[in-house]
């Protein structure tokens, strides 16, 4: 229904505008209905302006900036309609340490509302796990589970 979409859209938009500023330490972003007259059919545009930079097309953003913007939007949609369970497979791949930290903090804010499964190679991301499993292939081609000590030698 028209109203339900409008309500959800506005909610997601408010979250996104706030979450972007949190993840970027400033700047601004928005999601816009391409045609407000045609709210039931029109597409959705994304605008994003990192702090201190000019507003330009999102295509010109860097790899890490795009990841952070996408994460902000994903988490905004998530907070409006929390799925009990969310999976993120190496979403931190393009992030530098500073951005990885901000990402970690945002995940921890959402932990109360959902369970998260986070796959990562990053030692910074590993630290936010409430539990940590390793997967290895002792026998080639055969996956098994191992427990991982963060302080020990078997952090892969």
């Amino acid at each position: 229904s028209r109203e339900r979409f409008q309500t959800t859209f506005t909610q997601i938009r408010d979250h996104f505008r706030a979450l972007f500023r949190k993840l970027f330490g400033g700047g601004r972003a928005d999601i816009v209905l391409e045609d407000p007259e045609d709210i039931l059919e029109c597409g959705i545009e994304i605008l994003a302006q990192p702090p201190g930079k000019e507003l330009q097309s999102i295509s010109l953003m860097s790899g890490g900036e795009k990841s952070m913007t996408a994460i902000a939007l994903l988490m905004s949609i998530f907070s409006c309609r929390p799925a009990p369970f969310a999976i993120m497979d190496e979403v931190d791949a393009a992030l530098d340490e500073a951005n990885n930290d901000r990402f970690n903090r945002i995940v921890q804010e959402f932990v109360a509302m959902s369970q998260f499964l986070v796959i990562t190679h990053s030692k910074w991301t590993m630290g936010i796990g409430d539990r940590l499993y390793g997967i290895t292939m002792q026998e080639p081609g055969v996956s098994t589970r191992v427990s991982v000590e963060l302080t020990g030698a078997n952090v892969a």
Partner: protein
Amino acid sequence: MFLKRITICGFKSFPDKVDFEFGPGVTCIVGPNGCGKSNLVDAFKWVLGEQSARSLRGHQMGDMIFAGSATRRASSVAQVDLVFDNADRSLSLDFDEITVTRKLYRSGESEYQINQDVARLRDIKELFMDTGVGIDAYSVVEQGRVDGLLQSSPTERRLIFEEAA
């Protein structure tokens, strides 16, 4: 409701039965390249009814069955079980614990189960309707797909918003 564990047997690189217990908060999975982490994500999508082999990085569903290795013969069946705690009855079945199972045989035969009773894909979809559990575009972010929302066309993006609405 919350997710208790996933059990994988014969699916992709898991010829032996392996389970992963989930608790509240964040569960982190680590390991070297090619060890099976993303295969775990595929198992989750698959047991919840993923119909597209391509979306599981395969060409046909048979690709989901363990194909063998240097030291192992291929499996004849792939099975994944997903176990939920349903004490709060947010899933509309009168059980404290609900297990969703999917099996696929080399022959091509496949079946779904809910608490060991044969079920159809439709029953699984109905069970999770409006719970947010599932393989919608925003609760599973596959490897390399994090900026999917930015790369989509405005219309594709809208579909994701509609799902959330």
